[in-house]
């Protein structure tokens, strides 16, 4: 046999090995999510048995989702709470970090560096260590146990990363573009909106996806600050369902709740993967 044929065979073997390892690893990482999704479509009685096999043997049913919908004041209230908190966090974070990023990138003013360092250095301090005073401050402001209160806290938590991202995005825009617009007589705000905003949109996408995922998934602050059951976000509500606060644990309903919590994260990530990974590496490398 020629050496060429042997080399080809060796390459084919290496490729096969690579893909076998790749597929098995990928399956291991996806399996828990896929398993849970399959179980969420089992009937309540079937979901109360070990998931072997994972797929519904007694036929696909949305019974678990229907059961889930009945919990507390109705699951859509909790999903709505989560969604409004996440959406408001995204909008406010993007707005504030756009302004601040522009300010830090393009203007000179007293204490500029000190203020920038002040904001960025808050990443060093874990918010877990200031939850008690936050609770008291929100109470004082009349915002304890309200969704706007928790939104303000989430926004503040995301500011260091978001402002860092936005300032870098503005820094990357050549000054000449603004000079040209200024000659045309554009005001500062018009310039930000019409000229700069389109150029920093990738940065905005990164800030938005991080703010969404973090606020949609956050558990501890929501657990502490939202005391009225009707205000619960999905993670707090589902933890209560799983701990049996609503009677016997319906594992099918738990799985459908897990799916409801995971689906937006997975969907957004798959859609905006590029911006997510960029934020991850920018935040990590710098």
């Amino acid at each position, binding site marked *: 046999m020629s050496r060429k044929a042997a080399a080809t065979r060796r390459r084919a073997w290496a490729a096969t090995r690579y893909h076998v390892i790749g597929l098995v690893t990928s399956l291991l990482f996806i399996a828990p999510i896929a398993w849970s999704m399959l179980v969420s479509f089992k009937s309540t009685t079937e979901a109360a048995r070990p998931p072997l096999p994972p797929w519904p043997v007694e036929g696909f049913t949305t019974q678990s989702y229907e059961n889930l919908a009945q919990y507390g004041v109705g699951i859509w209230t909790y999903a709505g709470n989560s969604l409004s908190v996440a959406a408001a966090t995204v909008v406010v974070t993007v707005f504030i970090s756009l302004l601040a990023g522009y*300010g830090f990138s393009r*203007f000179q003013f007293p204490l500029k560096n000190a203020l920038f360092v002040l904001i960025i250095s808050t990443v060093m301090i874990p918010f877990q260590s200031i939850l*008690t005073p936050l609770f008291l401050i929100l109470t004082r402001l009349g915002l304890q146990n309200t969704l706007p209160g928790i939104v303000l806290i989430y926004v503040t938590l995301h500011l260091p990363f978001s402002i860092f991202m936005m300032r870098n995005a503005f820094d990357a825009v050549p000054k000449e573009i603004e000079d040209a617009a200024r000659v045309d007589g554009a005001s500062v705000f018009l310039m930000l909106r019409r000229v700069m905003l389109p150029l920093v949109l990738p940065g905005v996408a990164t800030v938005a996806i991080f703010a969404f995922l973090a606020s949609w998934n956050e*558990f*501890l602050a929501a657990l502490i600050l939202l005391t009225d059951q009707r205000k619960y976000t999905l993670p707090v509500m589902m933890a209560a369902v799983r701990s049996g606060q609503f009677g016997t644990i319906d*594992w099918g309903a738990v799985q459908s709740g897990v799916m409801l919590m995971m689906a937006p994260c997975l969907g957004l*990530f798959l859609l905006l993967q590029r911006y997510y990974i960029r934020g991850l590496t920018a935040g*990590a490398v710098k």
Partner: protein
Amino acid sequence: MIQGTPPQPHTPRRRGSRLRRKQLVGLLFVAPAVLLVLVFFLAPLCMAFWMSLHNWPLLGRPRFIGLANYEALMVDQRFWGAMRFTAYYTVIVTIAIFAVAFPLALFVERARPLTKLYRTAIFLPVVVGFGSASLLWSWLMNVDVGLFSPLAYRLGLTEKPVNLLATFDTTFWSIVVMVVWKTAGFNMIILLTGLQGISSEVQEAARMDGASGRQRFFRITLPLMRRTIALALILSVAGSVLAFDQFYIIADGGPQNSTVTAVYWIFSQSFVSFRLGYGAAMSMVLLAILVTISVVQLRLLRTPEGA
């Protein structure tokens, strides 16, 4: 060339006011961010320290007690137990994550067909929350309706289904596996950026000089990745020290409070027992630890690569 005085666009006075106006605009742009950080970060931070010097019940007047909370904390066995457990968990889980993530990063480094797909699949658990991941794993770990125990039983590995939440070791290691599943993808991507930062010319030159794959890994890849590896480890450490969701949701701190982490203990002292001042004192200790970690992180990251 002969020139007269160049035309002055503005008198100095007007230029001064224009400059001030521009400064004011800049300040206005950053004002909302600064205000939020002051009200929801700096103020609570100062307040946490102030509270730690008080006996501070939820209702009723706080009473100044000086350093009494800190003195009580020094001899609080349960607090130090939680700290010890957190340290143990942090060391184990950081090693475990790295041991899984580094080979994965090496595996997905060279782009071949389907590599992107593998990267995405491994990364998926990172984007779901710790809350939902914990709910999912609390089901997988359940002895009656879950996957692991019944599967092991049916395969004949155990004589009867084992309740993973009954002993410390099985609870602990199941949660470590869950956290590795959830965060390996994140560390893989961080390490991948480090790997891709090593110029292929260096690797190629070493190959030409006859260095084996092993030699290239230990002599080139590893030393050049020191900074990235340090970063990945420190991010894991900082995240693990603050662990809460998985121990609260999956194990409820059990069995017999053996998996209560530092944040969990602060949470239960502050918001279950409502000893707010004492909780604040413990928060200060946790904060000091985290700031130390961050300072070490900055030091390491400032060290030039290969130095």
